[in-house]
């Protein structure tokens, strides 16, 4: 499987290199959908020049990155484009190996439950085969690398890409079972932006699965943290799916979200390919997300350049985009739960008097 992955990496690096050399690079690095005040490359450069002058980088109220980032780029500033291409490649490779291992775990668990007769008799078509799961890691890497959102974030040199790499490595080390490394990467990711802290819960649940022990934790505060308890209760047996949902919630509810955050959880869609048949609104939601992505630049132009619209138009589209994402995630969540229900209760449901039954989420 190394050859296709290498090919995908080569294509991805070519696309990014081509864009870095074109005149679009400047234009993209100023788009507000791609860089935020927390992740903009221009601000990193500002911080670095302040550091070179011997002044604290934080004294200008412009630079909001962490000291580790500034020291990293202090040595690598001349190779900035290469650094960002390598981070994207590393993220893809980490996701590839993570999903490869995860598929093995899933298949083993499925076999165990089948032998223990935990599944209903008529669910043959819901059982996953190694054949269909063979190309999923490659698809995940492909999805991440060739996603327009990821390419735009890389060309804009948004430090969101580095955050994505750290989260990807956190996922890899969690699935491999190494608590120590997983804690290090989680700490680094949380150090850069506070939100990955919520990934502690699924990471803990996954690692403790092998010990056969399920504690609960109490989290309060903001929207990002608020969903962690209910999700932990509902998804305590499926920590990787929980992690996926949590990453999605982080990227929806964080302040200053950008498309780079969206790209990370979108890379996981091939892993949940088997849920496709249970998704209810995938058409409408895909249309909403594509339409909003296209309307962002149009309304920005009308607001800032033409001066005829105002900020309400742009924020309306932001709101619609977020609503679309929320509905998409809840669709996946619902589909996952349905599949689990069918697995244990049978695919062809009948009510007491023999007529066909329907599942309704109340």
């Amino acid at each position: 499987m190394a050859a296709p992955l290498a090919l995908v990496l080569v294509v991805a690096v070519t696309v990014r290199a081509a864009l870095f050399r074109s005149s679009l690079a400047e234009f993209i690095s100023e788009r507000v959908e791609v860089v935020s005040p927390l992740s903009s490359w221009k601000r990193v450069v500002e911080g670095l020049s302040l550091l070179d002058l011997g002044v604290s980088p934080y004294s200008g109220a412009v630079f909001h990155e962490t000291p580790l980032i500034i020291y990293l780029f202090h040595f690598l500033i001349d190779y900035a484009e290469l650094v960002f291409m390598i981070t994207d490649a590393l993220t893809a490779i980490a996701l590839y190996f993570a999903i490869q291992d995860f598929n093995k775990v899933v298949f083993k668990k499925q076999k165990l439950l089948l032998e223990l007769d935990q599944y209903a008799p008529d669910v043959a078509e819901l059982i996953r085969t190694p054949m269909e799961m063979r190309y999923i890691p490659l698809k995940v890497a492909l999805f991440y690398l060739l996603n327009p959102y990821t390419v735009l974030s890389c060309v804009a040199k948004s430090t969101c890409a580095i955050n994505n790499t750290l989260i990807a490595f956190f996922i890899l080390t969690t699935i491999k079972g190494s608590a120590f490394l997983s804690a290090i990467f989680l700490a680094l990711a949380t150090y850069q932006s506070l939100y990955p802290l919520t990934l502690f819960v699924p990471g803990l649940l996954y690692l403790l699965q092998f010990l056969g022990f399920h504690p609960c934790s109490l989290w309060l505060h903001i929207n990002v943290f608020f969903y962690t308890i209910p999700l932990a209760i509902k998804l305590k047996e499926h920590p990787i799916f929980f992690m996926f949902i949590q990453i999605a919630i982080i990227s929806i509810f964080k302040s200053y979200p950008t498309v780079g955050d969206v790209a990370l959880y979108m890379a996981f869609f091939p892993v949940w390919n088997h849920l496709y048949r249970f998704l209810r609104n995938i058409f409408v939601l895909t249309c909403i997300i594509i339409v909003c992505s296209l309307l962002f630049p149009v309304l920005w132009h009308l607001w800032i350049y033409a001066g005829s619209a105002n900020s309400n138009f742009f924020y309306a589209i932001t709101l619609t985009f977020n609503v679309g994402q929320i509905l998409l995630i809840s669709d996946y969540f619902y589909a996952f739960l349905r599949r689990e229900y069918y697995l244990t209760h049978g695919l062809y449901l009948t009510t007491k008097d023999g007529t066909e039954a329907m599942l309704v989420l109340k």
Partner: protein
Amino acid sequence: MGLLSDPVRRRALARLVLRLNAPLCVLSYVAGIAWFLALAFPPLTQRTYMSENAMGSTMVEEQFAGGERARSFARDFAAHRRKSGALPVAWLERTMRSVGLEVYTQRFSRKLPFPDETHERYMVSGTNVYGILRAPRAASTESLVLTVPCGPESTNNQAVGLMLALAAHFRGQIYWAKDIIFLVTEHDLLGSEAWLEAYHDVNVTGVQSAPLQGRAGAIQAAVALELSSDVVTSLDVAVEGLNGQLPNLDLLNLFQTFCQKGGLLCTLQGKLQPQDRMPAGGPLRAAQTLLLMLLRQASGRPHGAHGLFLRYRAEALTLRGINSFRQYKYDLVAVGKALEGMFRKLNHLLERLHQSFFFYLLPALSRFVSIGLYMPAAGFLLLVLGLKALELWMQLHEAGVGPEEAGGTSGSSPARPATQRVGLASLVAPLLISQAVGLALYVLPVLGQHVATQHFPVAEAEAVVLTLLAVYAAGLALPHSTHWVLSTEAPDRSWMALKLVALIYLALQLACITLTNFSLGFLLAATMVPGAALSKPSGPRPLCAALLVLTSPAATLLGGLFLWQQLQEAPLSLAEGWRLFLVALAQGMLEHHTYGALLFPLLALGLYPCWLLFWNVLFWK
């Protein structure tokens, strides 16, 4: 989440969409067109009113009396121009200086991508002359512009004369709070664009212009004047600018106020306005004016020098003096007084014009339709595309019940992944080929003009237009070449997937276009939506093909030209119409390169490939 997750309601909704799809689509389309036509009539139109407080209730007493001076300036200008053949720069400099302005000149030059046959120019170079009247007690932070575009065939002599006389009059007043720039440009809009780019220190169209020696602050508003006779019977106002951008409605309201005060007759789109007491030719005239504005805004051309100012957020209008066969004539003093009044009121502005509407339609000079009222028309048209797409999606997924309902769909589920996989591959080829043809349409005509002139006995401009038409027609042969690329095992239903993608692509493009230029979006939606919705491989193929060809972007352009001339009460014969069409194609490409007009790239790179996808669907084997 009831509607989205409750299976009973979903099934009912899905059945409704599928069964009533055709009637709903027809109803929606008719509603869209009817809504638009109803925009000309009272409940949907409102009377215009001045929104900007600073320009509202101040009384102004115009004192301009320099009619004789204006006429003598005009005569001198005409004489010097005839003698030198180009703009008499030295004379203009002398005269502006004698009137009391700070005078500067600016040289500019550019090479057009191919020779312009209508204006007979290729390598253009000229000089702009402008004089700045400094406000005596202000800090030169804001300015107003009065511009007169002069070209080889547009004899704007009286406009120059009036401008100079006004400058002399303004120089003697003490109430100016903003600087006033009096600008005379050579080669019409090319000079205006060169001046504006140098003034704002940008270079978007590749014109080589010398940097400006004198500046006067941010331009708040501008008026472009075109007068070719000593007396006028009416003043025509043009508002549509580059890419359909419109000035703030308050500027138009200002002009209309002063025309009413001075008793000047004003026309919009060349049509007389109904007086309130006598609604002569009422509803039909309003609909005609509305359609004329639609066509003008959709063309995206700057209909006057004002169109180029709008891009730099300076609200601007063009005033044209018309001398027709009416009996009552106004002399230059009346026009001068109206301009004086406008400039005095603009002088009172504290901020840029922003209170009134930026998006509107004008069925009459004193009536407008705001965006909230005209957008539903476009919404209804795009709804047709949405309904069709939804229907196709449901048909592709075993209509009605969703895939998660286990019962009846289990039998076809092994087949569905196979269908989807092949469907995806057979989608990519038509998409890539259509986009490639669109790219060829955009790039080849200008790039290949020299090759074409070497092999064929045509001039460059003709070569460009003929290449354009050739590539466009070659696209019609596409369905056959797509089938060479694809394997012959493309399953029966993959045309549905292609049509779904094409519908969404068209809807996206039309939505984005409608937001920035409503007229263009609405016109393209009204023509392309029926063809798009009705195209399918089965059914009466010649009829559908004819409909699709008649509603393609080029045919819309041709039809638009005929409609335009018909509404102007100067109908065209077929031959004249075709000639005008070729001229319009050449002008469209030139304007894209000289001013950055977006109609040509939008049609070539966006809508034509989309139309080709529907053509592909129609001829699917």
